[in-house]
């Protein structure tokens, strides 16, 4: 069905124009031009079908784009001076997902760079000598996971990390992003990811967090940053992934969530928007598209039931509309320039739509809310056999990524194995 090209799938504004419908029309126009060129002329008599056989992931271009960034960024990037661990994570994870080589020298440089970000009293900062930050800690630790081995994991002072995270913890279950900083679902996601990887998940750390996330589910069905605020793709992924770590996805109204997530895939574009009546953006291929693997498990659907979205249509959007063929890298939508953020999340969304990520039902762990079952539950996730669906050239296939952590499985397993072989952390909380 998704192969059919038809202007009928465009947004019907009922001949009533508003700002939203005009912007939507503009985007459909530019995407329509791209898809129209892909229509196989032999099928015009039947209404026209899109020929997807030629889609090619421009690996060499994207790799060069990322390697240039690893080498150095222009002065304009000073606006990301407090997001330095993110620059590293977006770059290295993009390389890893594409299967590009990360040589020992680059690994060492990455480790050295992350070291500079670690704060004396725990946590990682957005840059050296800044304040520790939840998101900076997430990005630094995930970068170390990507390039790490047992030697480099030692860089992380997990006891200090734990103590610092406890100082960010709020009585309602949420986390502050930094001292005196904003509070939202991102903080819980970062904390749960870090704690589950470093083997520092304690009942105190996770107390009330699932409840906070459930209060962020809006009546539309998606998840917002904190109670009351509009549902949004980024927070939805964060909330759902955090609940998967906690083993508590059932605190959500999953039917409404499924409805909202499914609705984010746009009928004509094939890509996802981040909110109701907003425009398509390549990054939501990850934040919403990627969350369908989590939704699938939460709904206890089997692999043969299939994901609740159109995987081919999403891949078409990423491959045909989000690649910057001139500069390399991937982007929000045609007409925008590529950047590291969109490069990673387009690739990650592509990966999660190419591979069916799931848990073998025979191995499903039933004791799913115990903090002790976390490493085993997280490592159950795998690319299921016969679950691959590649649009375009076979060589477009990228590495499978873990739907909770967003990185490939081998480095993740290595990291979990290391930290869970360490003796339990003894910290005095008071």
């Amino acid at each position: 069905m998704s192969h059919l090209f038809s202007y009928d799938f465009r947004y019907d504004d009922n001949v009533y124009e508003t700002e939203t419908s005009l912007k939507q029309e503009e985007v459909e126009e530019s995407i329509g031009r791209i898809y129209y060129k892909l229509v196989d002329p032999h099928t015009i008599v039947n209404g026209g079908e899109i020929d997807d056989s030629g889609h090619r992931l421009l690996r060499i271009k994207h790799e060069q784009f990322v390697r240039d960034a690893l080498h150095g960024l222009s002065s304009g990037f000073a606006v990301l001076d407090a997001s330095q661990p993110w620059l590293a994570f977006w770059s290295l994870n993009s390389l890893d997902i594409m299967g590009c080589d990360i040589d020992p020298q680059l690994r060492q440089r990455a480790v050295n760079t992350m070291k500079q970000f670690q704060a004396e009293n725990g946590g990682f900062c957005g840059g050296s000598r800044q304040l520790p930050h939840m998101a900076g800690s997430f990005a630094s630790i995930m970068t170390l996971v990507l390039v790490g081995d047992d030697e480099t994991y030692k860089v992380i002072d997990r006891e200090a990390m734990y103590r610092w995270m406890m100082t960010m913890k709020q009585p309602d279950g949420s986390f502050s992003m930094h001292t005196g900083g904003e509070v939202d679902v991102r903080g819980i996601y970062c904390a749960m990811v870090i704690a589950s990887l470093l083997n520092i998940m304690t009942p105190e750390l996770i107390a009330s967090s699932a409840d906070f996330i459930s209060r962020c589910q809006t009546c539309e069905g998606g998840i917002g940053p904190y109670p009351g605020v509009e549902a949004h793709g980024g927070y939805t992924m964060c909330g759902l992934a955090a609940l998967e770590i906690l083993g508590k996805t059932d605190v959500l109204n999953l039917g409404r969530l499924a409805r909202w997530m499914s609705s984010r895939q746009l009928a004509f574009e094939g890509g996802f928007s981040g909110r109701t009546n907003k425009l398509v953006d390549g990054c939501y291929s990850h934040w919403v598209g990627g969350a369908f693997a989590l939704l699938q498990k939460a709904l206890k659907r089997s692999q043969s039931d299939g994901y609740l979205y159109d995987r081919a249509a999403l891949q078409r959007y990423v491959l045909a509309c989000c690649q910057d063929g001139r500069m390399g890298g991937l982007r929000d939508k045609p007409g925008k320039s590529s950047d590291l953020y969109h490069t990673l999340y387009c690739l990650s969304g592509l990966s999660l739509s190419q591979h069916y990520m799931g848990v073998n039902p025979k191995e499903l762990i039933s004791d799913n809310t115990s903090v002790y079952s976390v490493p085993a539950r997280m490592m159950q996730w795998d690319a299921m056999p016969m679950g691959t669906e590649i649009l375009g050239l076979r060589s477009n296939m990228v590495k499978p990524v873990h739907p909770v952590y967003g990185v490939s499985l081998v480095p993740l397993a290595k990291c979990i194995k290391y930290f869970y072989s360490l003796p339990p952390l003894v910290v005095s909380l008071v």
Partner: protein
Amino acid sequence: MRVEGSEDVCEAAPLSQQEEWRDVTPIPQDDGKHPICPIAYTDDYREMMDYLRAVMAKEEISERALELTGRVIQANPGHYTVWVYRKRLVEELNADIAGELNWVSSISAMYPKNYQLWHHREALIVRLLDPKQATEGQSETELLRHPVIRRELQFLDNAINEDSKNFHAWSYRQWLVSTYNIWEQELIFVNTMINEDVRNNSAWNQRYFVILQGRNPAQVELDSELVSGEIVYTVENIKFAPNNESPWSYIIGLLLRHAPGKLYTDLLPKIQTLANNKDYSLAMTTTQFYWSALVDIYEQQARELPEQGKALLEKAQSICHNLAIEHDPMHGKYWEFRSTSLSV
């Protein structure tokens, strides 16, 4: 690679040549050996940061430090560490809050998508107008005349005019409205925004927030008349353009949570009337949102009227089938699922 909005704003002489800064030894950024993704800072930015690190290291509380944080934030408003320091400086120097607010507003205009400045703003407003005192002694009408509140609402009007779905601006509005209990004006504002663009989902979300007055939905029982009023309002807005997800999503979500029975006693007849009206029937019967609403409605009806349960679920199933193959094939997988998940 380039990022927008990073033009340097400084025209003054380098700090190293200024008498005022002679006593400070700058602390250079230590990125370690051969870092990845190093940023080629301009000399000006690098110098500002070197001096800022130095004054922060000794926790200096001074006018010059305050000014320096301002320059850094202007160049990079995402620098949360500098914001935290600035907040402390403003407090301890007893700086002019109104002036600070003006300054934050000017930054907001340049960087509408920044997190920190909204957070900073909240703290300033609380200092200017103590919420406890303000809400205890004054009615909403009186509060709306208060210059601080008037100014904030004006500021937000501008931000939302600039970008009608600005996530931060709407969130900040929620904070302002619930902190100072100014709910009535907010409903008027929401109506205006929905009138301007009936597809603005941020406005519809705000409507729910106002109806609940910021309370936890799980603990709120909504007045029956109020809910019926919302149904009328929503259906009136569906008329403008039935193929608009926002009002459907709003009313179905609201009713499922707070008054599921009204789905079939109140909403159903209204949308069916519309679907049978020749002016609306085409638009209604071709939009997936109408059919999708019927699925939710019949499922609820089946729950409450067990004697008709089987027939209603079959109706819902057949609608799901039609949605999957005709009205909304892109979401075919979802409609298959919805059909199998129907339950009483």
